């Protein structure tokens, strides 16, 4: 490759993998535009990556790795089409073939590349695909994660994940899901779909589970990277800025939220010196920009504002609970779900006391909401404990323990239940 430089630092498989992770989304997006076929473009990129693993260690990193991957990928795709012998039959998009030097490629894709990536993101997050498929496809195609890593992150077999990806790509091709940025009148709802996928990737990575923690951290990193991509491609939208802020403010507390043994440390007990102040500063700035924007406030921005109030308190006792309650009330209007109601009730307990909050939670439970969600009885138990109604608190903790699924959360509830035993019972 003419753009290759003599190796200055050794190019290892790990370096190549990192380059690939950074460039895969954009390279694939451009290849799809050239080849007009998702599957073919993906195979081509995979072959280009294999070629990179063979060539880069001896030839050195190309000056523009993405252009290199696109060019090699495109040649491989053309070879493959020739092998299939239907080349030249109905492939008008391949007329640019032959003229391909690195310079042409660069000139050709440098300008519309941002749009390419955006089109790819919207295609992968299309509402006609089911949510699981959207998440998997986005991680595979946009983030360049391997099928194996995605399978590991979502605790399914490689085969299941591969199947899921094949089906999704098949639907894109057969049903003709367009490779396009949506029309203006659909843009808001389609961006909402993209944000939902990004947030799901993040929450999946943020969930405290045992084992496989590295791959989970990866998911958080990828979600944040995706949000940054989206913001740079479509700047000035407070919904995506709000989501990025929310994820940064959660991620900032990563180091403080569990012990080395993997036990959960509650917000009020966290060592605040372990919080990442750089992420907090960035998150808080984004929240403030979103709150002061004339655009309609998004639910992510409100959730981020709540998270910001938590991390801005120098100590737990100085948390601005009245403002948090107010924000939950805004959130309840935007997103009237039982989970938001539950969180609102917990915030109310910090302003109006546990009895007022208990009324809200009992009302929620009476409507049958969240009947199998362990945090409902857990929150009820905490309120009952604060009201010195220990016997009822104990029952509620036991109910929560019967519903909880993740081991670290189970241990947390067990600790709270045990602590209850240490409080001398009335009379």
């Amino acid at each position, binding site marked *: 490759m003419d753009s290759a430089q003599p190796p200055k630092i050794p190019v290892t498989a790990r370096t190549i993998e990192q380059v690939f992770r950074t460039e895969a989304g954009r390279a694939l997006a451009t290849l799809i535009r050239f080849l007009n076929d998702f599957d073919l473009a993906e195979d081509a990129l995979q072959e280009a990556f294999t070629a990179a693993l063979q060539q880069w260690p001896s030839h050195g990193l190309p000056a523009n790795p993405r252009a290199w991957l696109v060019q090699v990928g495109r040649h491989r795709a053309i070879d493959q089409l020739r092998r299939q012998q239907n080349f030249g039959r109905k492939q008008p998009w391949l007329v640019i073939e032959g003229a391909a030097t690195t310079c042409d490629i660069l000139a050709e894709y440098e300008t519309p590349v941002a749009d390419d990536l955006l089109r790819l993101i919207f295609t992968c997050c299309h509402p006609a695909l089911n949510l699981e498929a959207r998440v998997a496809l986005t991680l595979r195609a946009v983030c360049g994660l391997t099928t194996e890593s995605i399978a590991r992150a979502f605790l399914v077999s490689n085969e299941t994940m591969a199947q899921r990806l094949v089906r999704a790509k098949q639907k894109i091709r057969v049903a003709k899901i*367009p490779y396009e940025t949506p029309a203006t009148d659909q843009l808001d709802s389609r961006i909402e779909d993209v944000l939902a996928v990004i947030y799901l990737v993040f929450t999946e990575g943020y969930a405290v589970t045992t084992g496989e923690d590295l791959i989970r951290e990866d998911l958080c990193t990828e979600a944040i990277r995706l949000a940054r991509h989206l913001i740079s491609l479509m700047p000035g939208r407070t919904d995506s800025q709000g989501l990025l802020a929310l994820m940064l403010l959660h991620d900032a507390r990563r180091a403080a939220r569990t012990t080395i043994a993997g036990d959960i440390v509650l917000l009020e007990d966290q060592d605040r010196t372990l919080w990442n102040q750089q992420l907090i500063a960035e998150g808080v700035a984004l929240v403030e920009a979103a709150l002061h924007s004339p655009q309609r406030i998004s639910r992510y921005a409100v959730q981020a504002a709540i998270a910001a109030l938590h991390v801005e308190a120098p100590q737990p006792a100085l948390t601005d609970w009245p403002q948090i309650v107010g924000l939950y009330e805004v959130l309840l209007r935007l997103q009237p779900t039982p989970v938001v109601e539950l969180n609102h009730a917990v915030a109310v307990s910090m302003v109006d006391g546990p009895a007022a909050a208990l009324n809200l939670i009992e009302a929620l439970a009476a409507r049958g909401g969240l009947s199998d969600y362990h945090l409902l009885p857990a929150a009820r138990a905490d309120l009952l404990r604060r009201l010195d109604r220990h016997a009822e608190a104990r029952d509620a903790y036991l109910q929560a323990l019967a519903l909880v699924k993740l081991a670290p959360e189970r241990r947390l509830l067990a600790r709270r239940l045990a602590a209850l035993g240490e409080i001398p019972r009335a009379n």
Partner: protein
Amino acid sequence: MQYLLLIYENEAQAANRGQAGMATMMSEYRTFTQGIIQGGQFKAGDALQPSSTATTVKVRDGKTLTTDGPFAETREQLGGYYLIEAKNLDEAIVIAARVPTAKYGSIEVRPVMVFN
């Protein structure tokens, strides 16, 4: 690209629509059909008799087996269809959303297979 829009609704509820409701629906369908004819997207379309008139046919070991009723007993029944021409799935979804029954029933959008 052709898509088949399959119109599903709850027949029992549809039967209770009343004369005025029926007239409104017919007029909405006329408007919609005119719209996609003028837009050049209309290929074909029909309403179907209720699923109680359906017969399901299958051939097993060379023998034709017929059963009374639709293939699947579901909450909603197939009541009609449109065959449309659309640029892609997004355009087909926009048209499907304009089918009057979309407001209370559901429209299944299926790409038509093309044999080369």
